């Protein structure tokens, strides 16, 4: 760019700002020599330059930093995910196994799982003085050493498991024989009287024997803390008559097949299952002395908390 009197200010400023190449700077110097009247303008522009002043930032130390030496712990997401899967799988398996530990015994299998010690207990109970006085004269029960239900005298035998809260006893359940007298066939509820309920089973068959069994040992002990209080759930006047259930008690959950009756009742919170297993067979398999025409009623009372 050629310098002249029209553009000298711009070139003076570029010169002072150090933005001109060497050749252009020489031209400006030459122009100033040739035009001394413009030297004052050049000097005035030079005076507009600020002289650096020393100003200190007093809080400089506050700006200084140190490297953060804290160790970074990496999160291994894959390992974390694998651990979570293993924990969930383990929990599922445990819950599944726990669910399988609550068996529902079928009526037909009860008599097969009755332990021998229970049978002997029953026999001992049978020979007790309290039992003898309640047996009828023509009952074959007397010969079989089994307690007999005599409908004519309104006598009912109820199986009750003892050792309610003791795990050790529950593992080896004892069976005691209790007797309830004068229970009306009309299923009068003992609940109304404020007494403990008890399961009752009545048959009007002559020469009938009642085989009382307990809960088999295969059931987890902690789930069998309380035996269902007795109450009359079903009645039948004769062997040919169909069992009549009290639906208010069974909640309509009873079922009957050829030789077995079962009733399962869930409580309001579905936290326990209670009921009894009955098995009606033509002949007592453990006592050949009973004739083929006699009927045997096997009762098992249970309550499973879960």
């Amino acid at each position, binding site marked *: 760019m050629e310098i002249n009197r029209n553009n000298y200010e711009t070139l003076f*400023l570029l010169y002072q700002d150090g933005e001109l190449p060497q050749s252009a700077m020489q031209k400006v110097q030459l122009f100033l020599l040739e035009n001394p009247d413009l030297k004052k303008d050049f000097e005035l*522009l030079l005076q*507009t330059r600020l*002289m650096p002043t020393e*100003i200190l930032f007093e809080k400089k130390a506050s*700006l200084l*930093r140190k490297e953060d030496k804290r160790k970074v712990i990496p999160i291994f997401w894959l390992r974390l995910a694998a651990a979570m899967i293993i924990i969930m799988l383990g929990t599922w398996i445990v819950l599944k196994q726990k669910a399988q530990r609550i068996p529902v015994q079928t009526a037909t299998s009860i008599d097969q799982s009755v332990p021998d010690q229970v049978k002997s207990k029953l026999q001992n109970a049978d020979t007790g003085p309290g039992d003898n006085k309640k047996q009828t004269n023509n009952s074959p029960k007397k010969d079989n050493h089994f307690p007999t239900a005599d409908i004519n005298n309104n006598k009912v035998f109820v199986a009750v498991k003892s050792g309610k809260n003791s795990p050790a006893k529950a593992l080896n359940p004892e069976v005691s024989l209790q007797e309830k007298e004068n229970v009306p066939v009309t299923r009068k509820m003992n609940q109304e009287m404020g007494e403990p309920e008890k399961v009752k089973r009545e048959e009007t068959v002559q020469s009938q024997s009642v085989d009382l069994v307990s809960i088999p040992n295969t059931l987890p002990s902690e789930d069998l803390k309380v035996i269902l209080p007795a109450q009359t759930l079903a009645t039948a006047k004769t062997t040919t008559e169909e069992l009549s259930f009290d639906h208010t008690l069974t909640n309509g959950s009873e079922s009957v097949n050829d030789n077995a009756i079962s009733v399962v009742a869930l409580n309001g919170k579905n936290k326990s299952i209670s009921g009894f297993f009955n098995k009606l067979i033509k002949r007592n398999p453990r006592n050949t002395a009973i004739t083929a025409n006699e009927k045997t009623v096997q009762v098992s009372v249970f309550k499973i908390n879960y």
Partner: protein
Amino acid sequence: MTAENYNECVSKYADGLYRFMLKSTRQAEDAHDLVQSSFEKLWVHRAEVNMLKCKSYLFTIAYHNMIDQVRKKIRMEYRETVPDFQQAVKGNSAGLKDILEKALSRLNERQRSLILLKDYEGYSYDEIAEITGLNASQVKVTLHRARLQLKEWLVSVENVL
């Protein structure tokens, strides 16, 4: 940039940056806050900043923060200081340096910042363009207009004196 490099930047450039901000804003507290926020940002982004670019990085951040945050405030305060400038000139108690300082306050923020970057820090037009976000031609035009304004003020003061 390591922490050591960062601390080196603090040692080298904190004073200059504070001077730039103080002359631009004329408010010590504002200048202090702007310097601190600029170095804070440099520390956060130290891994991405080259040591050689440290100074221009700091000045760029400080300039834009200053323009964005305190422009209105600065403008109001500078307008209020104008009578003081006239008084100082009439009182004949100010040297050329003080007169220039007062004249500087008559410039707008952009002009003042460009003058400061050129005269105090010695940046080239291209470097000033990079810091301010302007192009080199805008820097040149702005700076020249600011210089001519300052020259006019100097001439007028000379006439008064």
